[in-house]
């Protein structure tokens, strides 16, 4: 069977199981991967399935621990306290509120290069503020999801560019300006576009009315311990990597969560972790399944077929190919998209400045985190606001995402001119 046919069979089995038989997405992916191996004339190899899923081992741990962290700051009362603080400061200034909120969401993404980290840490912190001030739940989630993606792309740490850079031997230098030029207008525009109409300017009495209980009086600064600890460790690791212990993001979230036990309201830590695992399980299962799916795609040559098909596009169609394939491949993973497609695309545009090209491609690839079935940014943003159907959130992401795509591709097309300016 040809590589293309194998790929189609895999997708077919997946769609059939997930849509028609309502099998959980992760499990559907496992079966479709196994089918892929069989139809390509191999036996089912547990080694390959396991190996593929381990491609997301680190991501899985980050998600799991970030979810625990989120539960802990909710249960300790920190989240309410922070929300109260923000509302008191910003209830009259909606433009400023939106911009500050956007920057806050982006921040963890900027220093870790991971949209999930952003959505599940500061994203979770600001969500109640926005909702209380009148922004509908779904729009709030969309804002958080987009903020996470902008944070992932924004400097100083853009893992997507680093991955592409390691594929073409390009040092990670000179990216701050081009990335900011693309991301800042997008971030500001998205925040205002999604929020400006709905956020209410309210009277002080009304503000007092919606204010959640602040525990600051009771616990003082101790309450903020988990947050301080996480930011201190995250920042320390990225700013002073030589002197700082290398803990990794999962351990940092876990330490932050543990410190939450003693920081505020008493709660059952075990229940918090159980709760977090329960909520995270479907997406973790999807990631493991996606890993298997890619492994089998590579194994059977379907990955090679995909890449060569996009590279076969005539030059003018190349941009269309990039606009289509990089976010689409992001359905499996934005990082995977950067590595598998980003590198050949940079090489296909070898006459251009690779720093600018990779920056633009990373903006396009970042959209992959909105693409179902993984849609990491979308799924977690939905979870943060308590929405079970993340497609509803994605609907509000559509316009900002389209702008992101236009800016990314536009930057790519105009690279030779931009090269002269910055």
């Amino acid at each position, binding site marked *: 069977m040809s590589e293309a046919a194998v790929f189609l069979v895999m997708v077919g089995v997946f769609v059939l199981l997930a849509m028609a038989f309502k099998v959980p997405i992760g499990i559907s992916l496992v079966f479709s991967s196994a089918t892929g191996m069989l139809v390509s004339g191999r036996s089912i190899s547990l*080694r390959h399935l396991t*190996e593929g*899923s381990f*491609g997301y081992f680190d991501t899985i741990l980050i998600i799991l621990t970030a979810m625990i962290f989120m539960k802990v700051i909710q249960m300790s009362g920190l989240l309410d306290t922070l929300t109260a603080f923000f509302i008191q400061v910003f209830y009259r200034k909606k433009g400023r509120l939106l911009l500050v909120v956007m920057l806050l969401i982006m921040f963890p993404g900027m220093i870790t290069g991971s949209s999930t980290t952003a959505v599940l840490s500061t994203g979770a912190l600001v969500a109640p503020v926005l909702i209380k001030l009148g922004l509908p739940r779904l729009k709030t989630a969309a804002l958080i999801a987009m903020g996470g993606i902008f944070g992932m792309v924004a400097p100083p740490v853009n893992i997507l560019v680093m*991955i592409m850079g390691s594929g073409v031997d390009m040092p*990670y230098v000179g990216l701050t300006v081009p990335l900011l030029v693309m991301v800042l207008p997008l971030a500001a525009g998205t925040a205002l576009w999604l929020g400006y109409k709905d956020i209410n300017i309210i009277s002080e009495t009304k503000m007092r009315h919606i204010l959640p209980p602040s525990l600051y009086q009771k616990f003082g600064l101790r309450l903020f311990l988990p947050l301080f600890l996480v930011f201190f460790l995250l920042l320390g690791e990225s700013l002073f990597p030589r002197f700082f212990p290398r803990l990794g993001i999962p351990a940092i979230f876990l330490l932050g969560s543990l410190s939450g036990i003693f920081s505020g309201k008493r709660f059952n830590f075990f229940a918090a972790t159980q709760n977090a695992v329960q909520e995270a399980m479907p997406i973790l299962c999807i990631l493991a399944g996606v*890993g298997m799916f890619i492994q089998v795609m590579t194994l059977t040559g379907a990955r090679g077929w995909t890449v060569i098909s996009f590279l*076969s596009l005539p030059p003018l169609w190349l941009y269309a190919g990039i606009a289509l394939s990089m976010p689409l491949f992001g359905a499996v993973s934005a990082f995977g998209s950067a590595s598998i497609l980003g590198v050949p695309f940079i090489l296909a545009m070898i006459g251009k400045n690779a720093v600018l090209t990779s920056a633009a491609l990373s903006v396009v690839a970042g959209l992959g985190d909105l693409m179902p079935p993984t849609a990491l940014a979308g799924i977690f943003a939905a979870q943060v606001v308590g929405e079970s159907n993340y497609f509803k959130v994605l609907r509000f992401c559509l316009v900002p995402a389209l702008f992101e795509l236009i800016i990314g591709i536009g930057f790519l097309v105009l690279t030779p001119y931009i090269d002269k300016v910055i």
Partner: protein
Amino acid sequence: MKNKGYLISAGILLVLAFLWAGLAGRAFLKMFREESLRPSSGLTSKKMLSDYASVLTNTPGDTPVFVYEGSKKGGRALILGGTHPNEPAGHITAVLMLEHIKVQNGTVFIIPRANNSGFTHSDPQEGNPQEFFLKTSTAARRFRFGSRLTNPVHQWPDPSLYINPSGQKLSGAESRNLNRCYPGREHGTLTEKIAFAIVRLIQEEKIDLAVDLHEAALEYPVINAIVFHEKSAELAAIVQMELQAEGFEFRLEVSPPNLRGLSHREWGDFTPAFPLLLETANVSQGRLKGKTSQELILTGKDKFYLRAFELGRLFVPYDSRGIPLKNRAASHLAAVSTFLANMAFFAPEKKIHVTGLPRPEDLIKNGLETYLVPGSFSDRDQVRKIHIILHGQMPLFSR
């Protein structure tokens, strides 16, 4: 009652999960079995990399160093294979050399598995075979097809951002890439320790010529290349011309001064040696590769790469004959031999004269199998594998 049902299904699932983990785990553990190395009679001593940096002692990063000292004085060379265990030509070339080399003048150090830990796992989502076999006259010799990176079991977690010992910012996974960790750190990560020990070896053994053997994907611009540090420029240019005359095409690439952490850069800056890095073209590590298999590693034949060549996307000539492993090893061998032979031109007292190596053109003609020390039948697993090679697939649910 409902609870009981849950317990039963949970129990069944747990048993299945353990079974899966056990079977997959067995397959993974197989990668920890090292291939046998059979040094030639010219071997004068065998050391360990940890002899140069005790921090490596009893770590998975420690690796054997084979020393061949000639009866006459001369220059000192280090040949490094297996920096990236998914680039088999480098590894095989080092193995071939250590099985055949006899040194007359000077001393040659050979490290066939520079990143020993990288040989113990394979890259997730690359779908590669874990090993490949070369059928010698008696039995097949097994070689592992490992990963570009150190095994995460030995070094974990990756930071999100890796700043290497020379200050270069890289994506976190590169912290496990030996060829981004030079000059290494004595008390750093395992990979940095390996890099540190190699630099220490070059310094302590007063190495004059250090060659790092690599391969690259065909869509990557630096390919079929001699990458040289400024101070090796003249040697590289002379060798390139001589190789061209012998029918081996290499292009010259200078080591960029601002791409830090790579062997050709840091060995050059931190040691007195002439550093050089060789790249041949390996289909099986590319992004465009079709169905993966042991044949793909050995023959380098791939229809998608053929299409990419026709589209002008490759940086090497490519046709339906593929680029077989034996040709790639022959290129490496030709280049290394020419480097060694040319040392005397720079300083007569640095002369390195070696004999016994197979001629590169013979390697291409007769195949690698002819020049590897024959395998032994004693290894049951190998025999089983040969059976698979000869008689096709294993039954359903293989590893």
